């Protein structure tokens, strides 16, 4: 899976550079996010600008990261949600759970 991880001050941004986040590759994202949490990261921005399609397992990985961040008193922010991804969040009502921003920069600038 093509991921780019960048450290920006107190935050870490993970850019998901795949057009699909589904049952085939979502495990790799989960592994990377767990690695970051275990390494001490607590504030994560996950940028999904290139993701055109997400399924329930992709959603599950993001929910898992949300729970992980919560138990560590950290935060997960999402950015760059495209049309289908937004629809999936709304369908499953997860758009009310996550802090969602247009761009990674917007997410980083928010408190």
């Amino acid at each position, binding site marked *: 899976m093509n991921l780019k991880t960048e450290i920006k001050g107190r935050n870490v941004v993970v850019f998901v550079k795949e057009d*699909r986040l*589904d*049952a*085939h590759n979502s495990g790799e994202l989960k592994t990377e996010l767990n690695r970051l949490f275990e390494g001490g990261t607590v504030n994560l921005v996950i940028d999904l600008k290139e993701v055109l*399609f997400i*399924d*329930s*397992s992709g*959603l*599950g990985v993001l*929910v*898992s990261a*949300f*729970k992980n961040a919560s138990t560590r008193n950290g935060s997960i922010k999402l950015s760059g949600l495209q049309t*289908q991804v937004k*629809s*999936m969040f709304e*369908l*499953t*009502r*997860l758009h*009310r*759970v996550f802090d969602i921003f247009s761009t990674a920069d917007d997410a980083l600038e928010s408190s």
Partner: protein
Amino acid sequence: MATKRQGGSDGDVHYWYVEELTTQPTEVPLECGLEYRCSMKNEIVLEITIPNQTRYLSLIGKIGEDLAIVLDQYEGDRESLACQINVVLTEALANAITHANADDPTKEVLVRINISDTELAIRVFDSGHGFDLNKVPGPCSDTDILDDKGRGIFIMRSLMDSVEYKKTNDGNVLEMRKTLC
């Protein structure tokens, strides 16, 4: 005479879909376990057999989207329909591959899609032990949104008119239907 247009191939999976249909029922056997049949109601029937591996999810999803795009008389929002078909195929297949067939790479999954201007039916056949659809919890209240179990089934039930899971001679079939306006 029906016109065939090649869809493509990806390793050991080949698929075809049809651009124009006639009113004469015909049977055209195709390669690698695929079959196309034309019926009186301007319907496309597509059958694809894939190895039981998640690497083929994007291929099947893409084929599903293409079917919505080529529909002849459909008056609704094609892009929306294409997207929905991609989602439900992905969810049903992922369930068959990872749960019903327990990620066994030696197994196969058969997908049959019947699509016309007015109706969509998707059947996903697995050869595993299956699972009890009725025992899958659904996120039906605010407290369940974060529950990881059942999100896929919930999505299928939300996008399709009906979702059923039944036993067959060789395993099980997940059958989803939707009336298209």
